[in-house]
């Protein structure tokens, strides 16, 4: 007898993979939550001991400590949910309800990850607290003496004004100077070749030079030349010059990338309508490029802001220099922490602004 199936198509069927119930993972999350609960209590106990050793007693502090100890209780909620879903998944598997098992299993995983995420953050926080109070609050004493921060704040804020003035001037100058350099690099035709060459050399050179060296050379060097003009300039102006030269190169690169990012077909369309080179730049290319280059320009601006702290190498009394003077009098770095806080305070809003601009641009791009 012949096999009758030889010319019949076999129906192929894939065996469905069994979903995992996530029970082990849920259990691990719950264990971790309980361990962290204990760890938090222990760390807060250490804090309490350090406080009593230093004769620090305050009801509000105790209250805060107790609150922190209770904090990880919140972890029990997602961990419990995870375990519950894992149980449901297991039961569904036993009754061979694969779809329900998958749904509950996925839920169990999500809640377990949720637990892990918050547990991780809490762990980092506890480590930081331990670091802070280690060696009888050495870290806290060195960097965060509230009294010293408060005392030095006025002086440092005044010196910080120097940083602000320097970066405002250097910012405006480098924005303008950068555009000049970028346009010089993009000049068309053979006659402009020497100009393009110089502009390229300039950007190459200043992109590779560390700003601290430029500040040093210009701040110390130019007055040494004895040329009247430079000798009489205040140090702050030389710092502005140095930062403008350095960041002008960065800005120029951003402008150039922005202008070149406009598709050649836009040039062709504009020129074919009779618009001149500069009309095309002005009406078609620059307006489209600007949206794209504002975020990177702002990033450069933020970078320059931070580099104003380098001007201390030539003796400008900026916030950092002032803080160092105070710090060496106090034998304590809290004044420098003040400077750090000031820089953070002025930079964060700008960083957020850049993020928002980038996001807005992306949204427009997606839509278009």
């Amino acid at each position: 007898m012949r096999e009758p199936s030889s010319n019949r198509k076999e129906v192929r069927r894939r065996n469905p993979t069994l979903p995992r119930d996530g029970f082990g993972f849920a259990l691990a999350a719950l264990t971790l939550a309980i361990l962290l609960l204990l760890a938090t209590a222990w760390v807060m106990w250490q804090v309490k001991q350090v406080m009593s050793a230093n004769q620090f007693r305050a009801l509000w502090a105790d209250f805060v400590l107790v609150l922190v100890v209770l904090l990880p209780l919140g972890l029990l909620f997602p961990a419990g949910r995870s375990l519950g879903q894992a149980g449901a998944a297991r039961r569904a598997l036993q009754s061979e309800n694969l779809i329900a098992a998958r749904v509950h299993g996925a839920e169990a995983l999500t809640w377990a990850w949720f637990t892990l995420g918050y547990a991780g953050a809490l762990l980092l926080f506890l480590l930081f607290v331990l670091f802070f109070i280690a060696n009888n609050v050495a870290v806290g004493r060195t960097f965060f003496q509230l009294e010293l921060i408060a005392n030095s704040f006025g002086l440092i804020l005044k010196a910080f004004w120097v940083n602000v003035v320097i970066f405002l001037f250097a910012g405006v100058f480098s924005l303008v100077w950068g555009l000049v350099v970028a346009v010089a690099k993009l000049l068309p035709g053979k006659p402009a070749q020497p100009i393009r060459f110089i502009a390229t050399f300039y950007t190459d050179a200043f992109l590779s030079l560390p700003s601290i060296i430029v500040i040093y050379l210009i701040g110390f060097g130019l007055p040494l030349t004895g040329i009247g003009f430079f000798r009489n300039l205040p140090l702050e102006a030389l710092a502005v010059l140095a930062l403008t030269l350095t960041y002008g190169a960065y800005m120029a690169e951003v402008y150039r990338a922005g202008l070149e990012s406009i598709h050649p077909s836009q040039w062709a369309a504009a020129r074919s309508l009779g618009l001149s080179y500069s009309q095309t730049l002005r009406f078609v290319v620059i307006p489209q490029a600007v949206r794209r280059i504002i975020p990177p320009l702002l990033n450069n601006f933020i970078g320059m802001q931070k580099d104003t702290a380098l001007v201390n190498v030539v003796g400008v009394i900026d916030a950092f220099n002032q803080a160092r003077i105070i710090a060496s009098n106090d034998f304590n770095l809290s004044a420098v922490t003040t400077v750090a806080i000031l820089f953070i305070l002025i930079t964060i809003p700008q960083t957020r602004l850049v993020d928002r601009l980038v996001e807005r641009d992306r949204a427009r791009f997606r839509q278009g």
Partner: protein
Amino acid sequence: MSFLEVKNVVKRFGANEVLRGLNLTVEEHQVVCLIGPSGCGKSTLLRCVNGLEEIQGGEIRLHGDRITGPGVDLNALRRDVGIVFQSFNLFPHMTVLQNITLAPTQVLRMPEAEAQEKALALLRRIGLEHKARAYPDQLSGGQQQRVAIVRALAMEPMLLLLDEITSALDPELVSEVLNLLRELAQEGMTMILATHEMGFAREVASKVCFMYEGVVHEEGPPEQIFSQPQHERTQQFLASIIEAGRL
């Protein structure tokens, strides 16, 4: 003397000789269709006529006036010769109205109000007056391409170059663009169009030029080119078009 004379034009991109001594004449009110395989230099020829590409040999004359070589005022030339591209190339940051009025106000120094009035009249003609304040990305491909044509027309060119302007369009949007071209042809607009729309070429062309390897290989009235092509290359090209069901 013809309206447009392309004489022995040579165009090279580096070592790649794209136009190899090309000759072409166009009379006023003629519609000339350029056909030929992809890469044969149709776009390049149109871009040379508009001064978007420099040529390495020969010359091009418009109304007897040399429009290639040193000393030519390209911006002035481009007021008389408009070009429309396959990819529309509208300015995405400007409204439809601004797209159309930019060149008349900046190049012809037409007062803003007058330019807008003219632009609106042109938009009314193509039925897109209600889109005047819209941005290009809010328009369909066919609408964008018609706006691009009208943008070129706003400069009142003597000669309009159209480079495969329906190739990037969805099939159902092609006819609205071709209808506009048909109207322009009837009004006597002088046009050179590179196209793969053989049916349309057959219908409106005064002359069809088959380009091959950088020269005009065969030219003649549409009936002759499409029905009795003389050269083997032309026959092969048309056979492949028929095979693809496009003729």
